Protein backbone atom coordinates (compact mmCIF):
# COMPACT_ATOMS: atom_id res chain seq x y z
CA UNK A 1 0.00 0.00 0.00
CA UNK A 2 1.42 3.40 -0.92
CA UNK A 3 1.83 6.17 1.65
CA UNK A 4 -0.94 8.20 0.00
CA UNK A 5 -3.51 5.48 0.42
CA UNK A 6 -2.86 5.03 4.13
CA UNK A 7 -5.32 6.55 6.54
CA UNK A 8 -3.79 8.82 9.17
CA UNK A 9 -5.21 8.26 12.62
CA UNK A 10 -3.93 9.83 15.81
CA UNK A 11 -4.57 8.68 19.36
CA UNK A 12 -4.60 11.74 21.60
CA UNK A 13 -3.94 10.70 25.19
CA UNK A 14 -4.96 13.39 27.68
CA UNK A 15 -5.56 11.33 30.81
CA UNK A 16 -3.12 10.27 33.50
CA UNK A 17 -2.51 6.52 33.92
CA UNK A 18 -4.17 4.21 36.50
CA UNK A 19 -6.86 6.65 37.71
CA UNK A 20 -9.01 5.54 34.79
CA UNK A 21 -8.76 2.78 32.20
CA UNK A 22 -8.41 5.13 29.22
CA UNK A 23 -4.63 4.77 28.83
CA UNK A 24 -4.76 0.98 29.09
CA UNK A 25 -7.54 0.52 26.57
CA UNK A 26 -5.96 3.08 24.26
CA UNK A 27 -2.79 0.95 24.24
CA UNK A 28 -4.83 -2.16 23.52
CA UNK A 29 -6.30 -0.34 20.53
CA UNK A 30 -2.87 0.86 19.33
CA UNK A 31 -1.47 -2.66 19.44
CA UNK A 32 -4.39 -3.91 17.32
CA UNK A 33 -4.34 -1.02 14.86
CA UNK A 34 -0.69 -1.67 14.10
CA UNK A 35 -1.54 -4.82 12.16
CA UNK A 36 -3.65 -2.99 9.57
CA UNK A 37 -0.85 -1.14 7.76
CA UNK A 38 -2.24 2.36 8.19
CA UNK A 39 -0.45 5.47 9.43
CA UNK A 40 -1.09 5.45 13.18
CA UNK A 41 0.44 7.96 15.54
CA UNK A 42 0.13 8.54 19.26
CA UNK A 43 0.29 11.87 21.09
CA UNK A 44 0.61 12.53 24.79
CA UNK A 45 -0.61 15.92 25.89
CA UNK A 46 -2.06 17.37 29.08
CA UNK A 47 -2.10 14.82 31.89
CA UNK A 48 -1.39 12.16 29.28
CA UNK A 49 2.32 12.96 29.63
CA UNK A 50 2.26 11.35 33.10
CA UNK A 51 1.80 7.99 31.35
CA UNK A 52 5.37 8.30 30.08
CA UNK A 53 6.94 8.99 33.49
CA UNK A 54 9.81 6.63 34.13
CA UNK A 55 10.10 4.47 37.24
CA UNK A 56 6.46 3.37 37.36
CA UNK A 57 5.95 0.42 39.70
CA UNK A 58 2.40 -0.85 39.88
CA UNK A 59 3.10 -3.85 42.12
CA UNK A 60 1.28 -2.33 45.10
CA UNK A 61 -1.72 -1.48 42.92
CA UNK A 62 -2.07 -4.94 41.47
CA UNK A 63 -2.36 -3.48 37.98
CA UNK A 64 -0.25 -3.98 34.89
CA UNK A 65 2.44 -1.39 34.20
CA UNK A 66 1.68 -0.12 30.73
CA UNK A 67 4.62 2.24 30.50
CA UNK A 68 6.61 -0.91 29.71
CA UNK A 69 4.74 -1.37 26.43
CA UNK A 70 5.65 1.98 24.84
CA UNK A 71 9.22 1.09 23.81
CA UNK A 72 8.01 -1.59 21.36
CA UNK A 73 5.02 0.22 19.82
CA UNK A 74 7.00 1.51 16.88
CA UNK A 75 9.30 -1.43 16.10
CA UNK A 76 6.95 -4.30 16.88
CA UNK A 77 3.48 -2.83 16.40
CA UNK A 78 3.99 -0.54 13.40
CA UNK A 79 3.00 2.69 15.12
CA UNK A 80 4.47 5.50 12.98
CA UNK A 81 5.17 8.12 15.64
CA UNK A 82 4.92 8.70 19.36
CA UNK A 83 4.82 12.39 20.22
CA UNK A 84 4.80 14.14 23.55
CA UNK A 85 3.95 17.80 23.81
CA UNK A 86 6.80 19.89 25.20
CA UNK A 87 4.57 22.48 26.88
CA UNK A 88 2.57 19.87 28.78
CA UNK A 89 5.77 18.24 30.02
CA UNK A 90 7.17 21.56 31.21
CA UNK A 91 3.94 22.61 32.94
CA UNK A 92 4.16 19.39 34.93
CA UNK A 93 7.77 19.83 35.92
CA UNK A 94 9.01 17.11 33.59
CA UNK A 95 11.63 16.91 30.90
CA UNK A 96 13.11 14.35 28.54
CA UNK A 97 15.10 12.75 31.36
CA UNK A 98 11.85 11.88 33.18
CA UNK A 99 10.52 9.76 30.35
CA UNK A 100 10.36 5.96 30.43
CA UNK A 101 10.91 5.60 26.72
CA UNK A 102 12.29 7.45 23.74
CA UNK A 103 9.60 9.56 22.08
CA UNK A 104 9.51 12.63 19.86
CA UNK A 105 9.20 15.77 21.96
CA UNK A 106 7.47 18.43 19.88
CA UNK A 107 6.05 21.83 20.67
CA UNK A 108 2.37 22.67 20.66
CA UNK A 109 2.47 24.52 17.35
CA UNK A 110 4.05 21.57 15.55
CA UNK A 111 1.53 19.25 17.15
CA UNK A 112 -1.35 21.46 16.06
CA UNK A 113 -0.19 21.12 12.47
CA UNK A 114 0.18 17.35 12.77
CA UNK A 115 -3.35 17.06 14.15
CA UNK A 116 -4.62 18.82 11.09
CA UNK A 117 -3.07 16.21 8.82
CA UNK A 118 -5.14 13.45 10.44
CA UNK A 119 -8.24 11.88 9.01
CA UNK A 120 -9.40 10.85 12.48
CA UNK A 121 -8.46 11.94 15.99
CA UNK A 122 -9.21 9.47 18.77
CA UNK A 123 -9.10 11.15 22.19
CA UNK A 124 -8.53 9.03 25.31
Amino acid at each position, binding site marked *: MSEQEKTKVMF*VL*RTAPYGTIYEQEAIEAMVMFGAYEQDISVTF*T*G*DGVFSLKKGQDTSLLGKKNFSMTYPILIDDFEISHIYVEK*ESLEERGMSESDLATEVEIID*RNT*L*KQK*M*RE*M*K*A*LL*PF
Partner: protein
Amino acid sequence: MLHIVKKSPYESSAFSDAINYIEQNDIMLLTEDGIYAAKKGGKFEGALKNLMQKNAVYCLIADIKARGIQENEIIENVKIIDYKGFVEKVTEHNPMTWS
Protein backbone atom coordinates in the same frame (compact mmCIF):
# COMPACT_ATOMS: atom_id res chain seq x y z
CA MET B 1 -11.08 21.75 13.07
CA LEU B 2 -14.19 21.63 15.22
CA HIS B 3 -13.30 21.57 18.92
CA ILE B 4 -16.09 19.91 20.86
CA VAL B 5 -15.94 20.76 24.57
CA LYS B 6 -18.18 18.67 26.79
CA LYS B 7 -16.91 19.17 30.32
CA SER B 8 -17.48 22.15 32.58
CA PRO B 9 -14.51 24.52 32.49
CA TYR B 10 -14.77 24.67 36.29
CA GLU B 11 -13.99 20.97 36.69
CA SER B 12 -11.87 20.02 33.69
CA SER B 13 -9.09 21.32 31.49
CA ALA B 14 -11.12 20.47 28.37
CA PHE B 15 -12.04 24.10 27.64
CA SER B 16 -8.57 25.55 28.21
CA ASP B 17 -6.91 22.68 26.31
CA ALA B 18 -9.23 23.29 23.37
CA ILE B 19 -8.28 26.98 23.42
CA ASN B 20 -4.61 25.99 23.38
CA TYR B 21 -5.17 23.95 20.25
CA ILE B 22 -7.48 26.22 18.33
CA GLU B 23 -6.18 27.79 15.13
CA GLN B 24 -7.46 30.32 12.69
CA ASN B 25 -10.59 29.10 10.87
CA ASP B 26 -11.30 26.58 13.64
CA ILE B 27 -14.56 26.67 15.54
CA MET B 28 -15.63 25.56 19.00
CA LEU B 29 -18.82 23.82 20.04
CA LEU B 30 -19.84 23.79 23.69
CA THR B 31 -22.02 20.80 24.61
CA GLU B 32 -23.19 19.00 27.75
CA ASP B 33 -21.50 20.59 30.80
CA GLY B 34 -19.21 22.48 28.44
CA ILE B 35 -21.94 25.09 27.94
CA TYR B 36 -21.16 26.64 31.33
CA ALA B 37 -18.15 28.28 29.67
CA ALA B 38 -20.63 30.42 27.72
CA LYS B 39 -22.51 31.78 30.73
CA LYS B 40 -22.28 35.52 31.24
CA GLY B 41 -20.46 36.72 34.34
CA GLY B 42 -18.55 33.47 34.86
CA LYS B 43 -14.84 33.13 35.35
CA PHE B 44 -14.29 32.13 31.73
CA GLU B 45 -16.12 35.04 30.10
CA GLY B 46 -12.86 36.87 29.35
CA ALA B 47 -11.22 33.81 27.83
CA LEU B 48 -14.24 33.10 25.66
CA LYS B 49 -14.56 36.69 24.44
CA ASN B 50 -10.89 36.72 23.66
CA LEU B 51 -11.28 33.51 21.69
CA MET B 52 -14.24 34.91 19.77
CA GLN B 53 -12.14 37.71 18.33
CA LYS B 54 -10.82 35.09 15.92
CA ASN B 55 -12.96 31.98 16.21
CA ALA B 56 -16.67 31.29 16.10
CA VAL B 57 -18.17 29.60 19.16
CA TYR B 58 -21.42 27.63 19.19
CA CYS B 59 -23.47 26.03 21.92
CA LEU B 60 -26.19 23.41 21.80
CA ILE B 61 -29.66 24.67 22.62
CA ALA B 62 -30.74 21.34 24.16
CA ASP B 63 -27.94 21.58 26.71
CA ILE B 64 -28.45 25.21 27.72
CA LYS B 65 -32.23 24.82 28.03
CA ALA B 66 -31.92 21.68 30.11
CA ARG B 67 -29.62 23.49 32.52
CA GLY B 68 -31.93 26.46 33.01
CA ILE B 69 -29.75 28.89 31.17
CA GLN B 70 -31.70 31.44 29.14
CA GLU B 71 -30.48 32.70 25.83
CA ASN B 72 -29.94 36.17 27.30
CA GLU B 73 -27.58 34.65 29.88
CA ILE B 74 -25.27 33.44 27.12
CA ILE B 75 -22.30 35.63 26.24
CA GLU B 76 -22.98 37.78 23.16
CA ASN B 77 -21.98 36.35 19.79
CA VAL B 78 -22.00 32.74 20.98
CA LYS B 79 -24.24 31.15 18.39
CA ILE B 80 -26.96 28.82 19.58
CA ILE B 81 -27.56 25.76 17.38
CA ASP B 82 -29.54 22.52 17.50
CA TYR B 83 -28.37 18.97 16.75
CA LYS B 84 -28.82 19.53 13.02
CA GLY B 85 -26.55 22.54 13.32
CA PHE B 86 -24.07 20.35 15.18
CA VAL B 87 -24.15 17.84 12.30
CA GLU B 88 -23.61 20.64 9.82
CA LYS B 89 -20.55 21.90 11.74
CA VAL B 90 -19.06 18.39 11.68
CA THR B 91 -19.48 18.28 7.91
CA GLU B 92 -17.55 21.55 7.65
CA HIS B 93 -14.72 20.72 10.08
CA ASN B 94 -12.90 17.62 11.31
CA PRO B 95 -13.89 17.13 14.96
CA MET B 96 -11.78 16.68 18.07
CA THR B 97 -13.58 16.02 21.33
CA TRP B 98 -12.16 17.51 24.54
CA SER B 99 -13.58 15.89 27.66
